[in-house]
């Protein structure tokens, strides 16, 4: 059995964490070939070649793939599909955009956000915002899968895969990139951080969110947010944790001024230790918290930040 794995690459840079997690998820499925796609992807390809268990890396470098638009990227992947039984990727927004399109081109039903591999055709995934676990067996000849990165450990390094340049496919000329507004930050990435500090509507304003950020920086943590905090403009969209945002499972998750709606829990309830700080002792977040503090966050957060010296 052979696996083609779409590496997560943004503007030429490999997301090693997401890619290596998809590699470890695919380990039991067969020999792994990584596909690196981008306007520049030679560096990303050689970095991917060093991931343990990767046998080969294919590098498709062309300006056409610079922003990995769904139409040309899915065409390329579909054109390579005949040599593989599984076509997989980490479940990033990029892959969620591309992989269902690939699946439909191959007349297969995509298996999204897989959280466990049972065997080469049987997989577990969460449905209903994480309220149920479904085990599904695919009848398709080719399995197209995205893996929920928060449930897999990253594969190690030390691999020595060969890198091969491949021909690019045509430009379907259906879409073009206009601009990116990507935040750059020195903080760890939300989906790979060991500690995440998240703020909700209770924070009250964009200015007050600085309290959350200060605590996060003290802990070397990533910053997250509830949907209400993002919708209210306190935090940018890429901080959202939950059913429609990112799924995280850090060692420590600190939820501040977040009530604990099921859609938020869907994105964080697999965290190892959960701390909740909320002034409402009835808030549902306390039902999943290992340590709950009923307090006014405007007192508790500065105090906590101070006491971590």
């Amino acid at each position, binding site marked *: 059995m052979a696996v083609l794995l779409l590496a997560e690459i943004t503007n030429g840079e490999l997301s090693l964490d997401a890619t290596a997690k998809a590699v470890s998820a695919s380990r039991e499925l067969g020999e792994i070939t990584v596909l690196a796609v981008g306007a520049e992807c030679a560096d990303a390809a050689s970095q991917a070649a060093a991931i343990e268990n990767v046998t080969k890396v294919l590098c498709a470098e062309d300006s056409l793939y610079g922003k990995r638009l769904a139409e040309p990227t899915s065409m390329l992947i579909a054109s390579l599909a005949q040599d593989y039984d599984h076509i997989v990727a980490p479940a990033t927004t990029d892959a969620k955009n591309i992989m269902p399109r690939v699946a439909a081109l191959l007349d297969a039903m995509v298996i999204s956000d897989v959280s466990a591999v049972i065997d080469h055709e049987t997989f577990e995934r969460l449905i209903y915002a994480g309220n149920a676990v479904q085990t599904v067996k*695919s009848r398709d000849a080719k399995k197209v899968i995205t893996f929920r990165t928060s449930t897999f450990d990253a594969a190690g390094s030390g691999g020595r895969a060969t890198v091969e340049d491949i021909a690019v496919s045509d430009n379907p000329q259906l879409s073009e990139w206009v601009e990116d507004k990507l935040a750059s930050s020195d903080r760890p990435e939300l989906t790979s951080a060991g500690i995440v500090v998240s703020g909700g509507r209770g924070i009250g304003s964009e200015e007050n969110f600085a309290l959350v950020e200060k605590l996060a920086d003290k802990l070397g943590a990533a910053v997250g947010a509830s949907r209400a905090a993002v919708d209210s403009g306190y935090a940018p969209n890429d901080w959202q944790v939950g059913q429609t945002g990112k799924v995280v499972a850090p060692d420590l998750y600190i939820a501040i001024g977040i009530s604990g709606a099921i859609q938020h829990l869907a994105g964080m309830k697999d965290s190892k230790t959960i701390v909740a700080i909320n002034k409402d002792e009835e808030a549902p977040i306390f039902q999943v918290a290992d340590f709950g503090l009923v307090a006014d966050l405007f007192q508790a957060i500065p105090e906590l930040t101070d006491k971590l010296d």
Partner: protein
Amino acid sequence: MKILVPVKRVIDYNVKVRVKGDGTGVDLANVKMSMNPFDEVALEEAIRLKEAEQADEVIAVSIGVQKAQETLRTALALGADRGILVVAADDVHNDIEPLAVARILKAIVDEEQPNLVLAGKQAIDNDMNATGQMLAALLGWSQATFASELSVKDEHAVVTREVDGGLQTIRVKLPTIVTVDLRLNEPRYASLPNIIKAKRKPLEERTAADMNIDVDPRLEILSTTEPATRTAGIRVNSVDELVEKLKETGAL
């Protein structure tokens, strides 16, 4: 411009989901069902485009059990001009997979020739996030997923997408499929007069069988179970106690 909006009937997002004890699925008998929240946003955007005179017709389509008719009536009350119901299942527990839904939608698109399909980015029941992308592939159309801003000009749509790193804006050629995220707009409520008026709007009904579309699932569901539950831990009485506990347990 004609806009097609697929709307799915799903468990209401406020209802507590219960997994059936025999492992066959989630209990949907006698629970409140509503329009998928993402589809409400898609429909709202279509109606706004019509109100701005950028579109002349909004067609809502629902695929599922007969009762999805109620979801279409809601869509008509909100402002869709007509509805198409495709009955593809007898039992509400029988979820039609995105690939089959996309094939049914493709047949409808071939007939209706819309310039824009506005769909929700995911359904809150199966959380697949796939139908729009699959339909785009089957039609050979452009796609713009996870939209939080949309404008349509001449032969193009300009769409801002919510992506992992922030926001990305792309320009796609029409006809196109846009899948929407929740921040695109805030959907309206249906007024009573509009609910009454909706009863007279056209609602066509057909079946997947009549359309000759096979809806057999590709993914056989072996079991549906409860996820591991967390139990509530302890309450701490002060920040000092919190810090102490976190250090004690090695979390800090």
